[in-house]
């Protein structure tokens, strides 16, 4: 993209959080923490970084996104609805009987979902396969993949990383949602992943770590990653689980929470207040 519209991306990230909390509130409960910690990277990707056609989700030359942490589906559904893949009122149906928006991403049900995920650890392998398939077909598009920081407990992630590196897949850009918590608690208390960027570097990736809630930093990191040739890139998104949703930020664990209308309203008020103040989604001043 020639001229990134960071103001639009900031507004989009606020809208993704608003629509995600509304959808989960309508459903009564959901994977709120990890759905909103990726709101900013989704806003960058769908707000300009990706080459996509929302009216033609299966366009052969599109950029792809594999959301390997499939439980963050509602965050991605919000981004897809807000950018025109399907009507906004679909978001009211998340997890309802017969919905096209199940909690975990399902490519058979949802326009714009490029890969079915939900069993953690599998998406990066699929992203590698998509990139290899596109290479055979002479399609020069980017394949993006988002994995969770807990998800990289899974050994298959490292198998796929090795394969991406071995095959010199430089059109693969991986994001790690380093939000510091997995379901049972803090990463270091469950099974410490130690140095995430360093591990990917050891596996042959070009690694960057950026503020995971700063759309300009994320966008710049993608631009740098695109210039890397002969190896895949990883961008570690330094953020917090539940970031931007006040009740989730303050919870000890926020992987899956019951959300009612009062919590929804309070959360939206805080999102809008921080946005109007020009602060980061977590309330931190941009200065």
């Amino acid at each position, binding site marked *: 993209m020639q001229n990134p519209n960071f103001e639009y991306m900031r507004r989009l990230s606020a809208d993704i959080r608003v629509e995600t909390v509304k959808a989960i509130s309508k459903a009564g409960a959901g994977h709120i923490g990890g759905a909103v910690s990726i709101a900013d990277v989704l806003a960058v990707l769908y707000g300009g970084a990706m080459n996509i056609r929302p009216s033609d989700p299966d366009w052969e030359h599109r950029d792809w996104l594999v959301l390997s942490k499939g439980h963050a589906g509602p965050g991605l559904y919000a981004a897809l609805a807000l950018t025109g893949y399907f009507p906004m009122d679909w978001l009211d149906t998340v997890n309802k009987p017969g919905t096209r928006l199940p909690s975990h991403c399902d*490519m058979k049900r949802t326009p714009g979902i490029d*890969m079915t995920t*939900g*069993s953690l650890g*599998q998406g990066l392998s699929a992203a590698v396969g998509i*990139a290899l*398939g596109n290479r055979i077909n002479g399609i020069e598009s980017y394949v993006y993949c988002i994995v969770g920081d807990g998800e990289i407990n899974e050994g298959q992630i490292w*198998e*796929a990383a090795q394969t991406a590196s071995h095959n010199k897949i430089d059109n693969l850009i991986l994001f790690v949602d380093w939000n510091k918590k997995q379901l049972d608690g803090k990463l270091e208390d469950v099974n410490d992943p130690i140095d995430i960027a360093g591990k990917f570097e050891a596996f042959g990736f070009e690694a960057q770590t950026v503020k995971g809630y700063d759309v300009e930093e994320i966008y710049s990191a993608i631009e740098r990653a695109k210039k890397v040739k002969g190896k895949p890139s990883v961008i570690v998104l330094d953020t917090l689980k539940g970031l931007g949703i006040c009740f989730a930020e303050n919870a000890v664990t926020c992987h899956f929470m019951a959300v009612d209308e009062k919590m929804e309203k309070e959360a939206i008020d805080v999102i809008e207040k921080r946005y109007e103040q020009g602060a980061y989604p977590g309330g931190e001043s941009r200065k």
Partner: protein
Amino acid sequence: MRIASNHDLETVEMRKAFVETLIQEGNKNSRIVTVNSDLCSSMGITDFVKIFPDRSFNVGIQESNGVGVSAGLSAAGMIPFFHTFAVFASRRVFDQAFVSCAYAGLNVKIVGGDPGVTATTNGGTHMSFEDIALMRAIPTARVIEFSDTTMVRKVVPQVVEHYGVDYMRLMRKCLHRIYDESSEIIVGKANVLREGTDVTIIACGLEVYEALTAAQQLEEEGISARVVDMFTIKPLDNECVIESAKKTGAIVTAENHNIINGLGSAVAEVLVENIPVPMERVGAQDEFGEVGPQNYLMERFNLTSKTIYEKAKRVISRK
């Protein structure tokens, strides 16, 4: 379908017939790719890799990743064939085959080599008596076991044409010839190799030859055995099972697999829901495999024609 004039041991290995067919299909269809996990030479895929290096990916000893990469290749429009030994092609990758391939609605072909006792000297860790059970539990997945090289050459092109997850059991080495080369073999349609009136033997894979041998022995005692090659274990040819029960009133199944949740279970399900008749199952009796030459293992797990013959006589006595 035409049965071969003799059932001698073939001189062409199953894996050779497989790769020749895959190369022939690969020449016609540029979307065919192979994904391998450090068993190219064992599985006989090396010739495909040499001819189509840009359409072959060796992920090393990473079966789960290999199936996941295959899923991604399918999402990008390719037709991936993933090859490894049956134990790894089923139980090691079960969740990837289930979620990333079948549940995702993708088009991935999984080939499991050396099923059951054909793992021989690799022993119990490598002896898949459970791969049919696992793969047939995946909704929409088809399960096929080849019984000779003619079948390989007739069935692989149909696998290429079919969109979805197909699991193929492929013994790597030579099997006894079952079919004449002019045979038409259709996935999903059982082959009646021999008509009979007293009992039906329904077999798959290397047990087909054992079933034919047992039928010959039974004939010498005046017992008329129908023999069916149920090479498509899923979707099962229910009509053939029902017809066999009606015609002969007794069934013996024979498989190089645990009797639990394999061919015998699949046939039993059809019988009890439609036409209950006495039935016996030949196969591993809920046991682990063990190391040894194939002829020893055939005896050890009671997979020989002798056991089929004995079970046939027993099931007839239960009518």
